[in-house]
Every structure is written in C-alpha cells, then in structure tokens.
C-alpha cells in the first residue's frame, strides 16, 4: 500500500506544475504531459522509467518531514483521547485548538496565505499520524482535502486572499456540500437551486444537503447548486455551479449531528439553505462549470485516503508510505480502493485474532473496525471507483486500439493471419520482456520471480483488454461485472509494481529489514498473480469459470419478488 503511494508520488511530483521544493529532482523531468502509468498498463505497456527506481526524496526534505512529525506525534499520543471522542461523539474544543495551533488545518494551503504549504509527501506523512484517530482525520480531511480544495484549485486570487488565511489558521472550518437526499453520484438530480437576483449582483440559494462532514462546525461551505445557464446554442439549460457560501450570509441552518457507526467524533449533519444570498464574486470557476470543479475536487481529495488507512494499519501492525496529485486520478482511485479494502481486512483480522477481547469496548480494536468501515464507502464507494478505473482505462485503450480492432473486424486477410499467428505463439508460451528481469533488468535479482510474474500478467492483461474491446466495443459500459474484474486486475498490477519497486530499492540500498520486505513482496506478488490469472480466465469468452450469466439470472429472480424465493427445506409436498 505504501509502495503504491510512493509511485504515485513520483508521478505527481513530476506532473505538478507548481513550485517544487527541490528543483534538482525536477530538472530530470520534462514538463510535457506524459501518458499516465496506469492507463498505459491497459495497453499492456509498462513504463518502467516511471516506477523504477522507486521515488526518493532528498535528505533535506526528509529532515524537514521528521521535524514536523515529532510534535504532531507527541500531540496525538498525549493529548488525544480517542476513546473519549468516540464515546461522546464529539471532539473536545481543546483538542481542536491544539490541532489549529499545530497548523494542521492549513497543511495544503500555500505559505503566502498563512498555511504550511506542505508538499504531498509531507502531507501524506502527517496524514499517517492524524489518522490515528479516525474522527480527527475525517474532520481535517473534510476541511482541507475537499472543503477548501475548490478555492485552492479553481478559485480566483481575490477569493484565495479572502478566505484562505482564516481557513489556514483554523478560525473558520470548511465543508463540502454536494450530496442531497435524492442524489449520491448522480449530478443530474441535484435539487438545490440558485437563482440570479434581478440586479444580477447575487444568487439566492435554496435547498438542503445531507451527510455533510463538519456541517455543524463549518462556517465556509462549498455548495453545488443548479443554475439556469444559456449555453452556446442559445438554449436555456440547468447546469451545476459551485459557490463559496459563508454562514454569515444568512439562511444557513444545520440539523443535529448524525449518530454513526464509526468516526463518531466527526460532525455529520444536514445543512439547509433558505434564501441565502451569495454574491456573484463567490462563484468558483464559472457559472455552469460546477461539474468539472466537483470532479477535480473529488479526484484530488482521494489520495489522502491512502495515507489515512496506512497510518491506521501502522498502529495495528506497523508499516507503509506516500501518495500524489492530478491527472493521476486513476492511480489515486486505485490507491483508495486497495488501501480501504486492505485496511478493512487487516483490521478485521486483528479483531479476530484477539477473539473476544477484540470485541469488547475496553479495547480500541472495535473502534478501529468501526472507523475503518467508512473508508470503503466515502470519497466514492469502492464499487463506483472500480467502474471509474476500468472505464477510464478502457476509454484510453480504446482510443488507441480502435483502428487496429476495426482492421481485424473488417476481415482483412493479412491482419487476420497475423492475429492468428500471434494467438498461436501466445498459446505456445511466449517470452515477454519488459526489461524488468534479466541481465539489464531494473529489478533486484531477489525479486526475479515476482518480476517475471508481473511481466506475464501485464502482457496478458493487454491482450485481454483488446479482446474485450473487440467483443463489446463501447457497450462495455453496461457490462459491470466485466469491468469489475478488469479493475481488480489493474489494481493488483499496480500494487505488484509498487511492491516490487519498493522492495527492490530497499534491498539495493540496504534499508533495515529489507529481507522481510522482499519476502512480503514475493508472497503478495504470487497471490496477486494467481488472482489475476483467474480473473483473466474468467474474462475469456465461453469461460467455464465465468458465472456472470448465472448470477445475473439469480439476481433477476430475486429482484422480481424482492424476497428470498426458495421454499423452506422443511416443507413437504406430499
């Protein structure tokens, strides 16, 4: 998990246009946009220069990180009483004040606005520590990863100058208001409406939002509402717009905090807007451009999840590493899925190992379990993210492979023969060489086996994707069971790459306990290899392992009656 983050970091550091603390590293990268690593995997190509060698930070940055980490760790171990927070379902004001003093409310805000201006590595590293308490982690994440991210990435300079300083100091807390009772991921069904006033100076906001983290504490909200926009055809359309709404604008009320299973200290409640006056200067981006803003915020906020789960597992077992930023949205999603599911399995195991003790409230394990459960749900449920990962990859691969597939379908004899020959060679056992293993391989010799498995998987994955696109074309959007398998495979591939890269570095430079890392990597890669092979076998046409049709049929029968339809086994017929 950590290794995955490390790779993400490398890609992000390279891609990030903003000022980077270490230009020395930056000079090695060109500024031209490169296709992302994960999307290339869909074509069966491994861009090894991005992942090998494993990304490193310089000594100065490492020292700086450790400087930050010390006081924060001290604060969390001494002054944060997680048990009490969980029981009272509230974070005590002293704790909040302590967090504000440490500057944790402005970790990502640039220094010129009063924040800490941390790089992504440092943010992630600190995220590991803050997530020792789930409620605090979620409060901070809701504040900065999504709450004020809109202003950060899409706000004008005036908006930044107006709001960021107070947000950085923690004087005001931010919240992100998108979800409504009728709409989860469906942006089209947002009912909150913002109508322009007659003089055109402000919007009147009406509506209510549900399940808003920090809803009760926040004074600055990023709200998404429908506005009427005249688009370029001259037609009047309803489009979403993002607004910065202050509580002082009036008409903003919030309900009582929801009683939740986990992260009980975080304040989640409904927020209602009644004729709230929002001046037009507070529109983020442009009027009608809220959808893009929302997508960018959600994509960029996702990577913080990885470090959060890493930190939590670290407490229970002890391990892991760091994440990244834009256009690695696919990688960020993969990290989120993998880390949340990994965290859930680990925490469940930990509880299980302790048996009855783990179940008692006297011990913190059950609290960790409850707090971890939300990881699979918020920031995009894992199922939806799998769809996103698979579809984005398919779109990318499809664009490149369209011509080739069309050639095959047209029935060109030469091309068909070439395909048949290639399939024959695949069946005979082809030797794939991505440059990972062997004499000039980038992977350390101890990891040869794992490297070979990875290469094999990547090659077959490329073939499988091509096969799927040939079979389904663009209707693959409807084949969700297929897409789920594709997403699982690519997540495994990414995780294998990250693990191998990290272990390789670790053994090459001689970090402490590198042999343990190598062992873990080999175990993980073997398991992932077999899982990937099975999934790819299932994706073949007419595969015996493919139970999709049966499952769909059973599901349809149950859905018709909306109940369990089998008779009771004790029933008799005569």
């Amino acid at each position, binding site marked *: 998990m950590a290794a995955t983050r490390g790779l993400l970091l490398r890609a992000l550091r390279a891609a990030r246009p903003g000022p980077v603390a270490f230009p020395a590293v930056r000079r090695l990268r060109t500024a031209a946009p490169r296709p992302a690593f994960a999307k290339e995997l869909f074509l069966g190509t491994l861009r090894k220069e991005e992942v090998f060698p494993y990304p490193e930070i310089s000594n100065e940055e490492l020292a700086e990180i450790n400087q930050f980490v010390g006081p924060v760790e001290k604060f969390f171990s001494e002054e944060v009483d997680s048990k009490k927070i969980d029981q009272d379902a509230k974070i005590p004001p002293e704790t909040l004040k302590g967090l504000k003093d440490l500057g944790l409310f402005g970790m990502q805000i640039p220094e010129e606005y009063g924040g800490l201006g941390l790089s992504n590595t440092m943010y992630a590293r600190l995220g590991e520590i803050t997530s020792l308490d789930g409620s605090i982690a979620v409060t901070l994440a809701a504040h900065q990863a999504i709450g004020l991210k809109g202003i950060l990435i899409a706000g004008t300079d005036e908006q930044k100058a107006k709001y960021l300083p107070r947000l950085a100091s923690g004087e005001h807390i931010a919240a992100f208001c998108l979800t409504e009772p009728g709409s989860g991921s469906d942006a089209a069904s947002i009912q909150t409406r913002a109508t322009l006033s007659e003089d055109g100076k402000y919007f009147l906001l009406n509506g209510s939002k549900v399940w808003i983290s920090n809803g009760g504490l926040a004074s600055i909200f990023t709200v998404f509402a429908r506005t009427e926009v005249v688009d370029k055809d001259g037609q009047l359309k309803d489009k979403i717009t993002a607004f910065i709404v202050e509580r002082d604008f009036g008409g903003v009320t919030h309900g009582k905090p929801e009683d939740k299973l986990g992260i009980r200290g975080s304040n989640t409640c409904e927020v209602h807007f009644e004729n709230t006056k929002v001046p037009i200067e507070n529109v983020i981006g442009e009027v009608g451009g809220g959808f893009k803003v929302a997508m960018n915020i959600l994509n960029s906020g996702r990577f913080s999840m990885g470090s959060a789960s890493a930190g939590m597992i670290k407490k229970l077992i002890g391990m892991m590493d760091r994440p990244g930023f834009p256009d690695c949205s696919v990688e960020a999603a993969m990290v989120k899925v993998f880390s949340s599911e990994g965290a859930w399995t680990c925490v469940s195991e930990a509880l299980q190992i302790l048996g009855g003790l783990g179940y008692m409230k006297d011990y913190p394990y059950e609290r960790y379990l409850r707090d971890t459960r939300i990881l699979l749900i918020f920031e995009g449920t894992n199922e939806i993210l799998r769809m996103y990962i698979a*579809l984005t990859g398919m779109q990318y691969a499809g*664009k490149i492979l369209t011509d080739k597939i069309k050639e095959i379908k047209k029935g060109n004899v030469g091309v068909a023969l070439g395909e048949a020959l290639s399939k024959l060679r695949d069946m005979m056992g082809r030797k794939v060489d991505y440059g990972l293993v062997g004499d000039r391989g980038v992977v350390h010799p101890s990891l040869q086996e794992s490297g070979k498995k990875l290469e094999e998987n990547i090659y077959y994955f490329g073939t499988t994707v091509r096969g799927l696109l040939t079979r*389904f074309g663009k209707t693959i959007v409807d084949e969700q069971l297929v897409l789920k398998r594709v997403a699982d495979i690519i997540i495994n591939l990414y995780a294998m790459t990250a693990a191998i890269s990290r272990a390789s570095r670790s053994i090459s430079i001689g970090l402490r306990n590198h042999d343990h890392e190598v062992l873990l990597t080999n175990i993980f890669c073997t398991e992932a290899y077999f899982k990937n092979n099975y999934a790819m076998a299932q994706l073949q046409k007419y595969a015996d392992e493919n139970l999709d049709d049966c499952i769909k049929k059973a599901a349809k029968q149950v859905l018709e009656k909306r109940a369990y339809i089998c008779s009771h086994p004790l029933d008799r017929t*005569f």
Partner: protein
Amino acid sequence: MRLHWAHALSRGLWGGWGPSQAARSVSRHSSRPAGDPASGAPAWRDPPRDAQDSDRGPAAFAAALETLERIPGRRVGRLELVAAALAAMPALGVAREREAYHRLLRLLPRGPWVPRGPIQRLLAPFPQQQECGLQILEQMERYGVVPDAETRFLLLGVFGPRSRPVRKCQRMLYWLPRLRHVDPHPLPSVLPPPGLAAARLGLRRIANDPDARITVYQRPVPDEGDNEGSVEPYIVGERRGTQGNPGAQSPEQQELLARHGTARPVFVEGPFSLWLRSTQLWYYVLRGDPLPPHLREDPPDPERSLYYPLHLDLDLERGPWDDDDFDVDEVEEGPVFALCMAGAGDRRTLGKWIAGLQEANPVLGRTPVVFRLQDGDPPAGATGDPPTPPLGVVPPPSAVLEPPDLPRGYGHSTQGGGNKGNTAPGE
C-alpha cells in the same frame, strides 16, 4: 376367455348380488340431486356440501360402500363395481378426497391379482384388473389428488410390485407434487366474486409491479330510490412505474408521461378481457405510441455522473456474436402509463379515471387523450346513454390523429380474450 364367467356375473346371471346391483346402490345415493338441477352446470362443479348432509360427501360414499365392505371375499364383479363407484364419486362430491379412493382400493382383493413368478409377469397378467387400478389412479390424477404412501401400500398389496398401477403411482408421486408448483403465478384457490376485490386481483396479475399503486375511484352511493342498493360504477386504476417490457429499469411514470410530450396523443384502449378461472374481467389501458427511432433516446448527458463516465467515446460496436439484444418474440410496444378496470365501461367512468390520473400527472391535462373503445364487447352493466366526451378529450381519430399501424401482436379484445384464457393444468 377367462373372464367370461366374470362377465356373466356382471349381468347377474348367476344370481346373488351382481355388480349392477352394487352400482345401483351407489347410484341410489347419488341420484338425489337436491336443489340445483336447472342451472345446467354439472353437479360436480358445485363445491361439496358439509359432511352432515346425508346425500353427499364422504359419509354418503362410505354408506354406499359399507354393505359391500361388510361382505368381504365376494369374488364378483369388482371391476364393474369400481367403475360405477368412480363414475359416482363426482356426483357425491368425494372426487377430491383421497380417503374415498383408499376405501375403494380396500375392496379389491389382496393377493389373487399378484402375478407369481417372472414368466407370469412376462405374459401381461391380469390386464383388466390392472386396467381397473389404472382407472382409479387416472381419476385421482384428473382431480388432482396426490396419492399417499398408504395408496402405494394398498396398491402394492393388490397388484404386487412392478405392476402397472404401482408404476403409475410412482410416477404420480414424482410428477404431481412438482406440477403443483409449476404455475409461477397461481391464483388463490377461492376466488372473490366478480367486483372490486376481483378487479384488484386482476390488476395485480396483469402488472405485478411492487411500485404500482392501485386506487379505487368510486362515487358514494346516492340516497335516491332508484340507485339504492346498487353498487356504483367503480374504477380500479393502477398507476404503473414501468414501461412495456417487465423487469426493465425505468423512470417514474410521471417522467414517462412528461417525456411523452403534449404534442402526441395518448390513447385509452379497451376493453380487453382477462379470465380468472371462470370469471371474466374487462380492463382498459392508457398507452402511448412508441417513439420513432430518431427521437428515441436522448444522447447521454456528460454531466450526469460525478464518479465515472456513463458513456465511452469510442467508435467500436459490439461484436455480432455477442449481441443478443434482438429477440424475434419481443414486440415493440409503446409505453403503458396506466391500467384500470371499470365497473361500467362507459366514457364517463373512464373520464373520471383520467381526471383522477391528472392529479398526479398534470401534464395529462394538456395531452390529448383519444378514446378508442371497442364497442363490440361491452361489459355487463354498461349504461345505455351515448358516451359523453369528458374533459380534454379529442373526438375519435380523424385524419390528423391517425395513429400508425398497430405493431403486430398488439391484441384487440377478441384476440386478447383468446390469448388470455386460462388452460387448466394437466389438461
């Protein structure tokens, strides 16, 4: 040959109690009709009266047989006796009772009809006797009586293992319990009389959508002398949330109607008949025509889903070998917006139904509604006055509103009646 004497016995030539006598004793009990000869419905259709009634029921049957039971061992005319008893059972109303059949089987001799040895088995032993056993089982099958372990035991005693009746009994034990569950939508065994309850049942059968809501529009009974005591014409209407093909994921009904648009008319068609065993119900449909292909699906809105793309921008189509969308049996139908069953099928009542629907779908007020009623099969109780067009109704189709050809397979009421007739299981 060997049955000559049996035939002679049956004619009572040797004196003694011939089987015809026995049969007569049975039929004596059954030949008193008691009460409903004139309606023409055969007696066995009536539900059996309670057992206290001395003319019918298992008691009567037992009484009929008791004389014979008291004189066991008479080897005379048992086959004819069984035949007569089987014929009389429906009249006595015991045709669906297993105990009656057991009583009958106990009259048969145990042992003499069991073939001894494989050679005798080879020579088709006791054909008429086995035929008689088969007749009993056949009657049981026809009336849906599932044999029991006891039936099988009795048959084994009479005919021996590996005989045709026992084999048939085994087969019945395999199939009949299965066939009881063969109907995925079984009707309750006791149907409500034709009326409001039957209409509800009928609507639930037509469209078993859990989201659909059934409302009853009924005027309160007025106090005038004429109409006192009569049931006012009612409409039981159902608002559906689904489109033509069941199981499809579909938008709300209001959205469907709204999307249908006010420019194109919606049609009220009917009455179509629905049979619930022997009750005939009539229902009306509010439907629209299917959209022409070029208007069919609006292109997916790229701003719909925040988390993943709903539509891939690729130029690749599905391979023909993976494309199992087209099904010859599936007919293109336009959306069906609502169904109703009306107590009286005239325009006024239907107009009330439309008015009721309008409350939930204001767009219906602006859409022209065309009534295309088949006058050939008016339901009972239709009033004689000429149909007065209710609000918002456009008169029957003129050239402007001429609908396109109805898709093939869309039934008119006569065809619909034929299609909807129930066939009894196993017949």
